[in-house]
């Protein structure tokens, strides 16, 4: 954003002021994440930069907290990670299946009562989590599914489907329905048409919806707090307990791992979005 040569001084000042503000906001957004990285390698037990770290003394850094995360006595992270992944994977599969099929129906121009149905399907995303948590807890308690993996997976399917519905309907909005008609006129049955024509075209939307569902489940703590027993502990639950009781550097090691995971998910989601836009012929 170079300014033209003839720009007057006060506009120049204003322009740099504006850039400084933007820089500050970007810093505010991203800097907190980067504090965690170095501190998770702290050799000491404190959660601030030691003098050794400030002078980049190699002895001030260690992998101590990562070792503690993996090998520590009584450590809950192994079980939590296992549970988190199992729950998130099943919740993602459920959300993607239900959400994609529903999105196909919603995108049809024949769909009756589209507005109200869409509002219901999206509501778990809008309703505050604490209320969803209370309601889902009442249901799961009655159904005998409290403190089971099944119950948590079902709860996360509820919370995850709106994201799939939104991303897939968005992908379908640019979808050229004449290709499916062409397939049908060439003798393909609806299932075959869906698998061979529709699905490959909307796949980026489906996958990015799936990523949202995965992250929602993997990161979800409010509803799980109501539902989980000791056996069903997840990473967010362990972090929540840890943050409430005592902020230990081990949590920072876990947090660093989670940041790396979210970076990978971000990159995947971005690549998918661009691919989807290219496929749908949207040039930006």
């Amino acid at each position, binding site marked *: *954003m170079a300014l033209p040569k003839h720009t007057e001084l006060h506009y120049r000042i204003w322009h740099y002021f504006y850039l400084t503000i933007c820089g500050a906001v*970007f810093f505010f957004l991203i800097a907190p994440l980067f504090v965690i990285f170095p501190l998770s390698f702290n050799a000491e037990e404190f959660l*601030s930069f030691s003098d050794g770290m400030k002078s980049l003394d190699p002895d001030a850094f260690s992998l101590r907290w990562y070792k503690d995360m993996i090998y520590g006595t009584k450590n809950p992270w192994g079980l939590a990670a296992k549970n988190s992944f199992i729950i998130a994977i099943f919740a993602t599969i459920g959300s993607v299946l*239900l959400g994609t099929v529903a999105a196909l129906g919603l995108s049809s121009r024949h769909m009756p009562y589209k507005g109200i149905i869409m509002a219901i399907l999206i509501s778990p995303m809008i309703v505050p*989590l604490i209320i969803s948590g209370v309601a889902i*807890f009442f249901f799961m308690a009655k159904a005998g599914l409290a403190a089971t993996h099944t119950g948590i997976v079902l709860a996360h399917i509820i919370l995850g489907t709106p994201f799939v519905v939104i991303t897939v309907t968005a992908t379908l909005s640019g979808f050229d329905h004449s290709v499916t008609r062409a397939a049908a006129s060439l003798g393909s049955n609806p299932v075959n048409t869906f698998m061979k024509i529709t699905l490959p075209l909307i796949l980026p939307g489906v996958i990015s919806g799936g990523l949202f569902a995965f992250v929602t489940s993997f990161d979800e703590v409010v509803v799980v707090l109501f539902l989980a027993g000791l056996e069903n502990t997840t990473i967010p639950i362990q972090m*929540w307990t840890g943050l409430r009781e005592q902020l230990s550097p081990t949590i920072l090691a876990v947090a660093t791992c989670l940041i790396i995971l979210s970076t990978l998910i971000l990159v995947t989601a971005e690549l998918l979005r661009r691919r989807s836009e290219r496929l749908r012929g949207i040039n930006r």
Partner: protein
Amino acid sequence: MSSETKQILTTDGIPLEVSLKKAERRNKIKAFLLVAPLLLFLIITYVFPIGDMLMRSVDDKMVTEMLPKTFKAMEKWDGKELPEEEVFEAFYLDFRKLVDEKREGKLSTQLNYTKNGFKSIIKKLRRKSKNFEEGNYKEQIMAVHKRWADVEYWKAIKRRAPAITGQKYLKGMDMYKNENGEIVSVEEDRRIHRILWLRTLEIAFFVTLFCFLMAYPIAHLLATLPMKYSNLLMICVLLPFWTSLLVRTASWMILLQQQGVVNDFFVGIGLVADDARPEMMYNKTGTYVAMTQILLPFMVLPLYSVMKTISPSLMRAGKSLGGTPIVAFWKVYFPLTIPGIGAGCLLCFILAIGYYITPALVGGASGTLISNQIAFHMKSTLDWSFASAMGLMLLSGVLVIYWVYNKIVGIDNIKLG
């Protein structure tokens, strides 16, 4: 003409109009069947349970079921003078049954909610009633304690007769029904819920405002920069968006604590003395700072997607027609971004008003919101009907905003990432 068009037949000999309607209906059913599994699933596991919350929040069957004969006898009582012997006898019979089932403690707790002073007189009645003689229960009960001869206590019992009550909703607004059935507020120093509601609104409002003020410039920068720079900067917005909420809250806890990084920095540059480090966490400040950073991406993304569609030539045209950049911005650019502002602000506000995790961790006592109170009653006091009532009060507020959002933005226009 019209009679002729009706004559058009398909190859099967059915009028075209009928055949088309049939096809239309078939398509409708097909579309609906695709949505049905998810809709059914959500209705069973989500919509009904919210209805269940409503039932629980007004449910007051406990006392009704404990004193069935008493309430039946009380139907004829006008509620002014002390009730007749009949009511006392019914009450005695109900009470003996409760004592046999060891449930009189529950009754005393419940009645004590309605009027203070029931606990001790019920205890006394339990002891004395073992030796009651048959007949003339009115005299015998009134002799146990002078409060049993006080009509106010019998009125209090009668107030618990209906099986449904709005009492939990009143309690959520720090109000209650007094002896005369009037709705009054509790004493000034006990109005904890009103403070929480107001604080929730205040924090949600200011967090939304801060998000807007911070998001507007950077969304504008992202939308006007060339692609290769803006993609890089976009990562600064998207990475926090995809990062675990607990990780982001943890990082604020590290930054803001008294021995934390921000305080170290302030001491380092000599802004504050080492022994006078300000409390930036476990109070409102902590909630404001952390929630603003966490919700900022939800404001940036809708603003960005709107600003991206505004052609830069509009601003140039505004300037070439004699407007200063400020006038051109205010008269041309800003009005065009209003849909994005509306979407972003409503989304932020909805999310902020129901926030639970971050205030619970960094908010301390003065920075917690209504959600924390709901969780407290769900997990600690186990007053689930009160938690349900407050949840539904919050929900109705959110639904109003949701409805507005739907009107302004359209729910299918939510964009993610």
